[in-house]
């Protein structure tokens, strides 16, 4: 089978999965009821007196004085057909699938009473626009942590297979078990606490915009330096002389690419680029820790299996140096497992982002999700939008993994 045929087939096979996920979210949206659906799609309804007028059961006379008695709720009449809400359920389902595929994911409501720069920026915008603007940050963090995962798990897994039951192996086993057992939010908090205790209120970096130095707490949380004052949070420090540059809207979305580090470099703001990367180190370590635990075990086991195969013995018998055997013969063949496991655990990996971005207050998709589930301030359009987005990411990752796997192991696409 040609490579592109294989790719097309994989993508076609995943379409039912995506539609299935949308069906599940559709069922949940339907459970919310029509009024909530309208609110999610079109934002908060205009208020007439004290009445929110999406509700079809409120008589027209109460909403617009002087309307004739036969009229139903005007907003309902106008907007419900757009979502197919006056149609049978399966037609609504069709509308929902269509809107999901075309990124019509609704509008961000005025959900947040906690005023973060993020909530001020996104209020009233289409969900897909907001997510598209925040996604680059999450992707950058994901790539950064993937690099850490691969850089640690693969060499360590190989080492612990080669030096099996020796100190290296035992240490990597302990690390892997701790990765399974430590919840991310605890690890993150301990790391922040440790950094704060070690550095105190001295500066981590002498940030040029804050000569007196920020607290180390505000230097390791948030995507960007806080403009509130060098001492924030707590506000004890001197007033900041730092203002966001014009290419950084509200301190949330950077232009033109949206990838913060890249943008800072494009604009030649090297300090800010360095600062941005520095702020990603701790979150990336926390995210990587859990995934390293899984990957490490699989790499080790697959290395152990490969090391006993005939071709490795042949290579040794030929007199190939041991390091070359490990690197070129065995290591290359255990790469398949690495990629498969990464694909299988991607859902787990991406599911950790809301928590990490919430701990470190990073302006990514996960943070906005964490903000939108707060009790009394739920924003269902955002919750469902980010669920769809994360599912798309998982499916995309699966396709990439399948293609990579087929590329690395020709038996998959030829057999």
């Amino acid at each position: 089978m040609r490579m592109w045929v294989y790719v097309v087939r994989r993508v076609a096979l995943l379409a039912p999965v995506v539609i299935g996920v949308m069906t599940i979210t559709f069922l949940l949206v339907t459970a919310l009821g029509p009024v909530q659906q309208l609110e999610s799609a079109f934002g908060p309804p205009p208020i007439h007196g004290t009445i929110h007028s999406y509700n079809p059961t409120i008589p027209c006379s109460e909403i617009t004085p002087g309307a004739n008695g036969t009229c139903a709720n005007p907003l309902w009449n106008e907007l419900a057909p757009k979502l197919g809400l006056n149609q049978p359920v399966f037609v609504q389902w069709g509308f929902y699938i269509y809107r999901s595929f075309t990124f019509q994911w609704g509008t961000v409501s005025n959900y947040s009473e906690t005023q973060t720069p993020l909530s001020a920026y996104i209020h009233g915008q289409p969900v897909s626009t907001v997510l598209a603007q925040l996604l680059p940050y999450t992707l950058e963090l994901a790539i950064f942590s993937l690099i850490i995962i691969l850089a640690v798990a693969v060499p360590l897994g190989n080492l612990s297979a080669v030096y099996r039951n020796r100190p290296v192996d035992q240490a990597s086993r302990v690390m892997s078990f701790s990765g399974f057992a430590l919840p991310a939010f605890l690890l993150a908090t301990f790391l922040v606490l440790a950094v704060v205790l070690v550095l105190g209120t001295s500066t981590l970096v002498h940030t040029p915009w804050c000569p007196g130095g920020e607290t180390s707490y505000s230097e390791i949380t948030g995507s960007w330096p806080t403009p509130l004052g060098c001492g924030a949070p707590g506000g004890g420090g001197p007033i900041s002389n730092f203002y966001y540059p014009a290419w950084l809207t509200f301190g949330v979305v950077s232009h033109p690419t949206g990838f913060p580090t890249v943008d800072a470099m494009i604009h030649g703001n090297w300090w800010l680029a360095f600062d941005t990367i520095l702020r990603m180190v701790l979150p990336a370590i926390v995210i990587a820790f859990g995934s390293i635990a899984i990957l490490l075990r699989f790499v080790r086991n697959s290395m152990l299996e490969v090391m006993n195969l005939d071709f490795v013995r042949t290579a040794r018998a030929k007199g190939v140096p041991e390091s070359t055997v490990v690197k070129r013969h065995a290591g290359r063949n255990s790469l398949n497992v690495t990629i498969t496991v990464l694909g299988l655990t991607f859902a787990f990996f991406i599911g950790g982002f809301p928590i990490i971005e919430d701990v470190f207050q990073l302006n990514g998709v996960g943070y906005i999700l964490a903000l939108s589930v707060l009790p009394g301030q739920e924003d269902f359009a955002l919750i469902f939008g980010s669920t769809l987005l994360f599912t798309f990411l998982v499916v995309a990752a699966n396709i990439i993994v399948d293609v990579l796997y087929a590329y690395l192991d020709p038996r998959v696409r030829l057999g």
Partner: protein
Amino acid sequence: MASAPPPSPVPSGRRPSPRIAQYKRTWFFLRRNTLALVGLGILIFLIAVALYALTLPIPWNQMDGYCGVHLPGCTYVCTTPPSPPGPNCYAVNQNFPAFIPPTLSAAGGTLTAGQLPLGSLSQTPYSQIYYNTLSGILRGADWSLVIAFSIVVSGALIGLMVGAIAGFWGGAVDEALMRLVDIFLSIPVILFVIITVSVFSQFTIPGLSPFSSRMLLLILAFIVVWWPFYARIVRGQVLVVREQKYVEAARASGARKGRIVARHVIPNSVYPVFIQMSLDVGTVPLLVGALAFLGFNLFGLSSSEVLPEWGSLSAFSVNQFDAVFGACSVGVCVIPWWQILFPGLMLFLFAISVNFFADGLRDALDPRLRR
């Protein structure tokens, strides 16, 4: 354990039935794995703690709380009257910080007013509502174990049945069920639980309190997203088992499909499920903690209440870290390490002991991994 050649796994003499022999073999290999034994020991200890906590005089969904006299929202009334100060209740000075550091030396002995063996859990540095950490983590053993076991056992049962059906019947049934599994596997677990709980939390199941219906909802949401893992494992196993000679023999002797699945296929493909179950029991409390940490109303409690469950307790104490640090930079530097450490430590102990045990179990059950 590297000593004289190991004795035979199956004792000589009267031979036990094959399945008993299998259990004995498993225990034999498990016994030689120190880490697994340590894990099992900690696990048994935690279960004992959970059982002990059931005998405490505090209601099982509450912690020993310390409340100021005139406080709204303080849900726990002290078991003994505020005066004179007793072991369970103290009059609280309004200006006294609620961060009570642990008094480990006094554990078990008599405590003077304001001393707690493991310190207090409180929402803000000067909150009037604070909880006894020790009673919290004792109570937490109940809830964490109940939640974890109910989710994992039900998920495994459903997954076992679905996987066995898919693997044994094959064809269109297999295709349909496995596509369903794929669908659930591509939604991140945490996200699925978040959307389910936030959608359905507006409804209360008639006849149940808001708290019970939320709890039921959380467990159901986890089960719905948890069984596919097991279904996939079991199906893979069943595909191997159904080609075995004894299944063929059963079919030849005229057994019905249902009987073959129940008596031959499932018992022989259940071991990987045990391994995965023992791993997952440790994972669930971590996920519940993560959900509680995100701050949405998981259990229908008021903002000053916290469910005594290890994950929720550590999330509760971690969540006020910002406030703590804010206070710290102003000058009153109280970092309440104990209220983050102790519940987190219980969570960590539970998860890591379960992982040690599961790893030993895998080594014992899977001959290829045995060293």
